[in-house]
């Protein structure tokens, strides 16, 4: 089921992928309004502009490996990346839940976010700023593995402080954080 869905989005993306610098091709994978409907593909609506620029450059340079997305960014110029990031950061974020709510997990996640001082960078509403992504209302099934990856095998070009935040944080706590963050209310776009 999941595999079939991924093929479908890939084909749609290829269909739109003729013109560079158009964000339609991106939304084939990342959801029609930038809020992803596909497991393990992140929502990109209302992500801070600079965060998107940086990640697009890293993916284009092959530093952040994304075999699925790479073909769509490999030939983008810096100017096209800047334009895409601007368009997409203006799209409103919508929550995309992928699991039933668990009140205990929710509470634990909120506590951890405070205790581990995530909010100094991601801001108290978890909406992100500049190079730091929005986490609020992001897909839970994206947040969890991406945090594990930061902790266990930080990628080249990845933020080393972000990796340091998660040193020694257990899988269970990462799950709680992902559960809580995915349910935090979506912040306004345009950062």
């Amino acid at each position: 089921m999941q595999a079939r869905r991924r093929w479908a989005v890939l084909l749609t993306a290829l269909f739109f992928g003729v013109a560079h610098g158009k964000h339609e091709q991106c939304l084939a994978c990342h959801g029609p309004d930038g809020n992803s409907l596909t497991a393990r593909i992140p929502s990109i609506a209302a992500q801070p502009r600079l965060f998107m620029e940086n990640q697009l450059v890293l993916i284009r340079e092959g530093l952040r490996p994304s075999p699925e997305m790479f073909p769509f960014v490999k030939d983008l110029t810096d100017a096209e990346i800047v334009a895409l990031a601007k368009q997409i950061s203006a799209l409103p974020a919508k929550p995309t839940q992928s699991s039933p709510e668990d009140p205990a997990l929710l509470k634990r996640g909120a506590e951890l976010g405070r205790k581990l001082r995530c909010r100094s960078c991601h801001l108290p509403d978890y909406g992100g700023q500049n190079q730091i992504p929005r986490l609020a209302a992001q897909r839970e099934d994206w947040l969890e593995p991406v945090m594990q990856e930061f902790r266990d095998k930080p990628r080249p070009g990845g933020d080393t402080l972000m990796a340091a935040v998660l040193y020694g944080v257990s899988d269970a706590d990462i799950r709680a954080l992902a559960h809580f963050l995915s349910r935090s209310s979506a912040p306004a776009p345009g950062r």
Partner: protein
Amino acid sequence: MKTMVALAVTAAFVLAPALAQDKPAPPPAWKQGMPDKMKDSKLAPHAGKMTETPASDIPISKARLPKGFKAEVWASGLPGGRAMALSPDGKKVYVGTRAIGRVYEVSDEGGKRSVRVVVDKLTQPAGVAFHKDALYVFAIDKVLRFDGIADSSGAQPVDLTEKFNLPKEQHHNWKYVAFGPDGKLYVPFGAPCNICEPPKEYAQIRRYNADGSGMEVIARGVRNSVGFDWHPKTGQLWFTDHGRDWMGDNGPQDELNRLTKVGQNFGFPYCHANGIVDADFKKKDACKGVTRPVALMGPHAANMGVKFYTGKMFPAEYRNTMFVARKGSWNRTTPSGFDVVNVRIGEDGKATVRPFMTGFNESKDSYKFWGRPAYVQQMPDGALLVSDEQLGAIYRVSYGK
């Protein structure tokens, strides 16, 4: 050590057994050293920019210099460009980066500069240095040598990684590297944390023979040095070092240090700046035997590149003084740094630090910066290049009546 052990024990309990197996204790997390009263702080590292900024968008006219000096955009379109290495013939400048993973070559072609990428996809290749005609590139996990690169754009790298035995933590392990007057290669290994008792391979400066053999630790207790140079007369090593975070707006200040004896201890993590005892890591006689800095370089100012000026273009008073680039603070409610300063050492051995190139931050009390000066490089004609890591540009500072 206690804290590392405590962390290791906690980690062993909370992590799945598969993860805990034969893994060394992880370096302390981000909140290490962050006092409770700062838990709602919104201080965060500033964003880097990874896309090109055209020269026409660089407000270089806002840079301020002493009378008689002027600054111009010398090269642009090198996102993330920081440390610079000049080819032996003085015609090409090689520039390292961090996150974007590239090393650039800037060629001067009769008044115009062209930029090409020499190598990319590396993990923070911040270190670049020349030894004879060979360019050394240091990433966090890789060492490459490009022989004869300035004469041949197709030069293929020799991989020297295995010779250098680089430790694996990334944080604070992006490198500034340089060859000393002794022909040895000097390489810093920062502490992989804000504040911790670092594992034994870190918080030090080492030197190696050019082929990676003969490793020697020459300075210890160094938190994060990313700039050094040798005094033109004494041959002594001078290096900058970043003070720790989350101990308040006013310190501990960054340091400008001088190595007078191999093996000196510069205090990290117990003793900072001019004898400030650490707030988290206590030890009896914390500052005993610690070599104090020659100059304090400002709280959280991020002093980076340092070069002694030996050229003839600038007025004579600048000869053998130092230019130090201070990239600018983030862990402080008001800005500090964001400039290039000139440091002079008096007869009495005391240092004076004066502003030289300023205007990168447009407000005294808030963060309104357009550029972040990171490194300086003297050119054969005596002009000074200043790299701006924020806008991916290099400025040329010259003097003339």
